[in-house]
């Protein structure tokens, strides 16, 4: 177990370094720079700015300086908002984004798994049909369309929930639905097909042949086996929720990290792009790692080592 963890930590770190390097190279290979728009600025001012932010140094030096900063958890000053650091953006935005992401994840899991179970147990009958219709809608409708639709009906027309922000508990309802719709549908379908498959397995017949009640057959034998495919896609699901939140945060005017990220890209705010990317990558890699560990704990067939 420890060997596996150490190994995975190593590969995670390498992956992260690679992401940082790639972002750095890509960012600098695109023409233009953070101060390119300020055309009126005299050359000496630009030079001073470049010098201030070390943009006059060779790229290699800049890269290692950046890594050095990372080790001290310093993501550097923003190029666009004087006096603010990327750390500020994350500290300000992360709580909103994380809370939205986490609530959505929990909502998705506690809704998708029972939906999948219900559909599988009532296979071919109306509860199955209802779940499948919901799931198909959730997969086919893009989240921004769903967000706009939900907002129009429930916030604007019916006035049941606030249109934007996250001030009240009810403010979460629409963003969570819009953000989680796809994952919810995907996981519900996956759970359904997985449980249907498991119910046809030989060991289920063995369990029944022992005289176990159907409830025990399902809870003790079927569900644990059926949940494994769901666990394997949990990593990508978290990734999906995280990246999906950029758009949702914009639409619902949620002051999370996503809005800073989107702005930073259009404005060539180098340090903010780098910092956000690094932060997201680190978070994602950690989540995938945790999910993997969890999955390995559930399935004894997977050797840890």
């Amino acid at each position, binding site marked *: 177990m420890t060997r596996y963890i150490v190994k995975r930590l190593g590969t995670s770190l390498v992956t992260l370094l690679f992401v940082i390097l790639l972002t750095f190279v890509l960012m600098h290979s695109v023409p233009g720079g953070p101060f390119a728009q300020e055309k009126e600025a005299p050359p000496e001012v630009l030079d001073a700015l470049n010098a201030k932010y070390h943009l006059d140094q060779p790229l290699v030096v800049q890269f290692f300086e950046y890594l050095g900063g990372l080790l001290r958890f310093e993501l550097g000053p923003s190029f666009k908002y004087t006096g603010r650091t990327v750390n500020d953006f994350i500290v300000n935005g992360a709580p909103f984004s994380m809370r939205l992401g986490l609530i959505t994840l929990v909502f998705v899991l506690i809704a998708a798994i029972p939906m999948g179970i219900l559909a599988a147990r009532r296979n071919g009958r109306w509860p199955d049909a209802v779940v499948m219709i919901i799931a198909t809608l959730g997969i086919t409708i893009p989240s921004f369309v769903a967000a706009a639709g939900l907002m129009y009906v429930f916030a604007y027309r019916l006035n049941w929930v606030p249109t934007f922000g996250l001030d009240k508990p009810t403010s979460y309802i629409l963003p969570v639905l819009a953000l989680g719709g796809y994952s919810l549908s995907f996981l519900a379908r996956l759970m359904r097909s997985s449980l249907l498959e498991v119910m046809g397995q030989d060991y289920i017949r063995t369990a029944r042949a022992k*005289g176990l009640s159907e409830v025990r057959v399902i809870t003790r*034998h079927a569900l644990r086996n059926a949940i494994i495919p769901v666990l394997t896609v949990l990593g990508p699901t978290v990734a999906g929720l995280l990246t999906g939140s950029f758009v949702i945060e914009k639409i619902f005017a949620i002051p999370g990290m996503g809005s800073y990220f989107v702005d930073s890209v259009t404005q060539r705010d180098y340090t903010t792009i780098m910092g956000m990317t690094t932060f997201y990558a680190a978070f994602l890699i950690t989540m995938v790692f945790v999910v993997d560990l969890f999955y390995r704990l559930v399935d004894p067939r997977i050797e840890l080592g």
Partner: protein
Amino acid sequence: MESLLEVRRLRTTFRAGRSRHDAAVQAVRSVDFQLGRGETVGVVGESGSGKSVTALSLVGLLPKTALVEVDKLTLDGASISHLSRRQLRDLRGRRIAMVFQDPMTSLNPLMRVGRQIDEMISAHDRRLTRRERKRRVIGLLAEVRIPEPEKRYNSYPHEFSGGMRQRVMIAMAMALRPEILIADEPTTALDVTIQDQVLRLMRRLQGESGTSILLITHDLAVVAGMCSRVIVMYGGLIMEEAPTTSLFAQPMHPYTIGLLGSLPALRQGQSDRLDSIPGAPPDMTAPGDGCPFAPRCKYARVRCERALAPYYAVADGHRSRCWLLDAAAPGADSPFGEADGELRRKVVPLDD
């Protein structure tokens, strides 16, 4: 021998699809047999002949698409054909236990083997404490010769070989000393050397508990070594039933003769399937009125295609469903050899 299980006119059909017009699969068309206390009866027949469906029908383990009908189904004199779900559960495992073909897939991969055996006990006996059950499970593991049973209690199925898993399945099935053990091809998936160990284990446990065994197999050599009686199935019907020695010495059905003819090939390990009779298995959705074996039978005549033969009693406990045994059938080119005329004179039709 005292009859423990009695089955009369068992019929099992599968709905093919959702539509009522889809042709149903008549997997078991009419099966009757008895199983005596402590007896081992073999069920042989080609793939698809209805052996497994017959076995699963007895304990209601078929999917919901199956329709099982039976005129009489008694266990120890009491009918078990119309049990409630609860009564059926109480019967399964405790009175009629099963061992299946593939030990690699028949155990839950995520549950410790000890716990899987324990479940068999806890499902039927609420009085025992966890600790007492664990001790019994370890005893059962030792009984089926699993080395270091205390340690192996906590193993997962993937840590066991195929033979060990099948022994775990047997330990589980025999845990409550059931009256009947249905073993559906328990050795087909195993190496030849392991097959022998598993069969010997079953015989030993049977000797200790007096359990009756219904042994489904493709392997006539297994039948010869284990069973006192054999049932030969084809197309969802019993074609011939006889004491094992009579069946091997004097098979009275062209299909059985075909099966026995494929035995040498089996011994050479070329195939573990009885597939050397030329021709394809019958269409179970439209069995027709005649003998299902007629398209592949070299003795078939017009009568065979028109109607299904009744059973003829060849000798005590030996019956066969073939028109050749009818008193009116011409004796020339008989598959039953020289003594044919004399044999047939002894044959009496049984009423179905």
